[in-house]
């Protein structure tokens, strides 16, 4: 299915990330599985693009291809005009499981990208201090991941992500395991932070409300193989107040609309 790009056609900006005709097959237990098919999608600098759809519809596959973790079987993906090669250094990845290194404390985990960059010890220390402040982890530098709560682990992973300051953040259901309250708080913070730092974000979620609340644009996927069903502009202010969205009529209309798109896939597949 062809995606209807919601970005205006006369947009002067060239897309930062561009997927064209992307398809990906996996071999699972000897059987060929088409994860995504015919994906055309442009992502623009500075926007928060959310990808929503049922699980297993290939949203994460797109992120992995964009990060260069594996190549697409069909089509091209380019980043800033160049084809993506293995391990795209311009993107940072944050997943549902935070993949913190259990043998390093919070400060040590955040310091990893800085160590890789080859900064000096005092520089690292200062930056780590600042990052912990940014994500609200001040004073927890000496704690090990297994001593932290789920939300704090997320903050730590986020700080690590920000430490190497990638241009684009790929987030794959980062808050899926958090409780509703904490999740909303993280949503608020992440949106505020990404706007402030002018990051481009691709945010995968299976939660429609989250997709609308966070996104500037929202891509709706459907089923296996994953295809883009619709791309919509989220008609909410950039400095929206996520806490009060529930009462926002625009928010309610758009989630209801998108829900109609998604709902059939619930009964379809299984």
């Amino acid at each position, binding site marked *: 299915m062809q995606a209807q790009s919601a970005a205006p056609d006369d947009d002067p900006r060239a897309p930062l990330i561009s997927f064209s005709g992307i398809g990906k097959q996996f071999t699972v237990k000897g059987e060929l599985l088409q994860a995504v098919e015919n994906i055309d999608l442009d992502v623009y600098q500075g926007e928060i693009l959310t990808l929503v759809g049922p699980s297993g519809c290939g949203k994460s596959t797109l992120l992995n291809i964009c990060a260069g973790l594996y190549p697409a079987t069909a089509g091209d993906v380019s980043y800033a005009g160049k084809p993506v090669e293995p*391990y795209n250094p311009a*993107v940072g*990845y944050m997943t549902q499981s935070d*993949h913190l290194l259990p043998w390093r404390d919070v400060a040590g985990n955040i310091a990893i*990208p800085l*160590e890789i960059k080859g900064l000096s010890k005092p520089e690292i220390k200062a930056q780590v201090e600042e990052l912990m402040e940014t994500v609200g982890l001040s004073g927890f530098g000496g704690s*090990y991941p297994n001593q932290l709560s789920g939300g704090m682990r997320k903050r730590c992973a986020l700080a690590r992500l920000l430490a190497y300051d990638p241009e684009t953040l790929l987030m794959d259901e980062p808050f899926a395991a958090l409780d509703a309250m904490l999740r909303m708080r993280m949503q608020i913070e992440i949106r505020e932070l990404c706007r402030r730092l002018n990051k481009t974000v691709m945010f995968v979620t299976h939660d429609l409300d989250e997709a609308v609340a966070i996104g500037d644009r929202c891509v709706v996927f459907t089923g296996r193989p994953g295809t883009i069903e619709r791309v919509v502009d989220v008609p909410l202010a950039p400095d929206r107040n996520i806490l009060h969205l529930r009462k926002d009529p625009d928010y309610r209309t758009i989630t209801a609309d998108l829900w109609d798109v998604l709902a059939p896939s619930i009964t379809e597949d299984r």
Partner: protein
Amino acid sequence: METPSRTYIWVLRAAFLVSVLSFWEFSSGRLASEFFISSPSAIAVQFSRWVMSGTIFYHGAITLIEALGGFLLGGMIGMIFGVWLGRAELVAEVLDPFIMMFYSLPKVALAPLFVLWFGIGIDMKIYLAATIVFFLVFLNTYTGVRAVSREQVAILRLMGATEKHLLFKVVLPSAITWVFTGLRLSVPYALIGAIVGELIASNRGLGYLLANSAGQFDTTGVFAALIGIMIMAFFLNAAVKLLEAKAMPWRDLNSKREMSI
């Protein structure tokens, strides 16, 4: 559940030891011949005589050198090979059946061969202990390197990590738990290697003391030598445990944390 206090547990342990020793002392000469089971008091006398004369320290030092030498040599080579094969998939695939074949061989069966090759000096025992230790450490290190989370590696690669960064920041630290398991398992085995080597051919060491006492039908001496070996094994194990806690502070916290399911 109320955990019993430490003192209480120690009191119970002491009581257990005392009752076992008393029973032994009592049975000796009454339920079984003293010739075969000796008696705790006789063993204590023999042991203190060896301590006074320094015999136990002399022979203990020899065994310790052999066990430690074998432990270090085998552990070092085991770690190096484990990391190398863990990273080099093709080589590992090719060598796998041979390694497993050699692994299933009881290493002490090599002792006679080692006597031929290296003579009956200390070095032969070191090599024997090292061969045993090598496999334990190698296999554990190998497994550990293989068990490294691919996601963690991918995430670091996205940060621009080089092969060297990966090795020192992810692979080795993540494998260290396994390495230490291998090292800790090897300590008693290093001792086994050293002692078996001494039993087969030697004129020094705790194994010699043991074999020599047995040769003279001196059960008391045999038990006293066994106690010497036990004490040495205990201290070696304690040392590894201490090192382990130092090298992996995050593990300690893990076991102290409140449980939740």
